[in-house]
């Protein structure tokens, strides 16, 4: 693909090197992407016409939106505390379970090839169900309320943490593992004393990411009836109470920003 043909003139002449031709894989990729784009655009009936014809309708909502009901922000303080609590507990449980799952999904810490492959499969199944899917399932399993929210986020977190951490585990320095093996450590001891200390900074950093994600996701799980601010949002939307939705929106913005800043500060110290 890349040009290896020597220039026809002698080496002393500064011939221009031949331009490398793009590989067939690139062309195939571009054609495939274009095909998928056309298929998708037809499938969802893509058009921007309403943007020009119906923009006034949107403008009306935006206008209402810019008159937020400030009092409402404090009225729903309890729902926010619930959302934050759900996120804290789900992050804690989900990340601990995720760490264990990650250890079991790596051949470094679980030598049995069948076992770690099986764990990997279970994890990709867990990951492939979207957060809202888990929320629906958990609401069905344990009923409406924050317990369902916690359980749904725990499943969601296990999927993310296990994937990120197991890749860190695969990349650990083999030295300490050999040292642990040489001193006769069993599998658990090796995981605890040679792998865990190496992945701990990464793991903590991922856990904070997951916590940030959970704040946003807990709005989502509220849509399925799993507690927190999402429930409040759903009710206000149903009533078309834009001034209250707008208040929730502003509060979301502030809370997410605060959590992001705090977690970034902590992450900088860890990493």
């Amino acid at each position, binding site marked *: 693909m890349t040009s290896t043909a020597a220039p026809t003139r002698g080496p002393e002449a500064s011939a221009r090197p031949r331009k490398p031709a793009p590989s067939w894989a690139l062309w195939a990729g571009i054609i495939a992407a274009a095909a998928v784009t056309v298929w998708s655009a037809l499938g*969802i009936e893509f058009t921007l016409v309403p943007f020009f014809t119906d923009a006034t309708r949107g403008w009306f*909502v935006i206008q209402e939106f810019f008159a937020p009901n400030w009092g409402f922000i404090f009225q729903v303080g309890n729902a926010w505390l619930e959302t934050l609590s759900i996120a804290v507990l789900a992050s804690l449980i989900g990340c601990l379970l995720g760490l264990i799952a990650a250890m079991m999904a790596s051949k470094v810490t679980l030598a049995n090839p069948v076992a770690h492959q099986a764990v990997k499969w279970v994890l990709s199944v867990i990951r492939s169900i979207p957060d809202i899917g888990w929320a629906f399932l958990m609401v069905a399993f344990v009923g409406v309320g924050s317990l369902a929210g916690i359980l749904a986020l725990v499943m969601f977190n296990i999927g993310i943490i296990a994937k990120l951490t197991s890749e860190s585990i695969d990349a650990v320095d083999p030295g300490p593992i050999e040292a642990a093996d040489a001193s006769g450590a069993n599998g658990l001891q090796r995981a605890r004393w040679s792998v865990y200390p190496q992945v701990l900074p990464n793991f903590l950093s991922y856990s904070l990411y997951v916590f940030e994600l959970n704040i946003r996701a807990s*709005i989502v799980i509220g849509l*399925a009836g799993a507690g927190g601010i999402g429930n409040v949002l759903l009710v206000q939307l149903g009533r078309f109470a834009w001034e209250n939705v707008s208040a929730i929106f502003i509060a*979301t913005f502030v809370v997410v920003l605060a959590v992001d800043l705090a977690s970034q500060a902590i992450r900088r110290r860890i990493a």
Partner: protein
Amino acid sequence: MTAATRPTTTMKRPTPPSKWPHTIGLLVSLAVVILAVWLVDANWIRLADLPASIGNYVVLMGEGLTHNPLEVPWSEYWVLATQRMLESIQMAWIGTLIGAVLSLPLGFLAARTVSPAGVVFVTRQFLNAVRALPEIILAIVLIMPIFGLGPLTGALALGIGSIGTLGKLTAEAIESIDPGPVEAALAAGARPVQRMRWAILPQALPEIVAFWLYRFEINIRASAVLGVIGAGGIGSLLSQLFNRREWEQIGITLVVIILVTIAVDSISGAVRARIISGGGRKLAARERRDEASAIV
């Protein structure tokens, strides 16, 4: 302890680093967790019922799978779930494309090595603001009043939602390029646009395209959420099915979600690996970090 018996008295053990920051961190975390347990109004007793009810519902869902998928009511369920899942993928694809097209120029504006400091600051604040908003709020407020309910609304919401992360990651990819080609372009008298086109973009593009693919995978999952508020796709189907508690059909739908998602993820992962190894500059650790931030 063992040092006491050694004859070498001049060798002093280094003082161990202070454990206070660690202890304080642990105590604060513990306090936060206790506060959370105290604040949350969870019905913990229901946890005891969990194994039984999981078993119960899994059996119900499994029944949907044991029926012959070619017979009439069941074949319709399989086809419906697949159609809706494909609609979600279409939403996610168009959304990612919109996000990609809009975030590329923003990425250049947010890159410290390309744009003046003032522009970088403003663009970064804008990207942070987009990142802080859940797509669902964007969908409800900005797009639904204009475009109504449907997959198009979902795609637009995903597109705008993608700008935040894609813009930030694009800027970082641009900042981390090798400055050599840029200097070469400067030496050859290239204007800023020519420098971007011929020195910066070819270096950063493999990484940027890999981020687009990450985002596509994430958007497929995110589209399920938008579906619940009426943007079509698999989310709408799930929400209808759970409202009607049609467990057999839910089982079929979940299997379709799992299979299609894993298939798309592995194809996209393979393409990504090829793109990145073709670029050949990235380290595994760097890629993992980027993946983590792509999720956010």
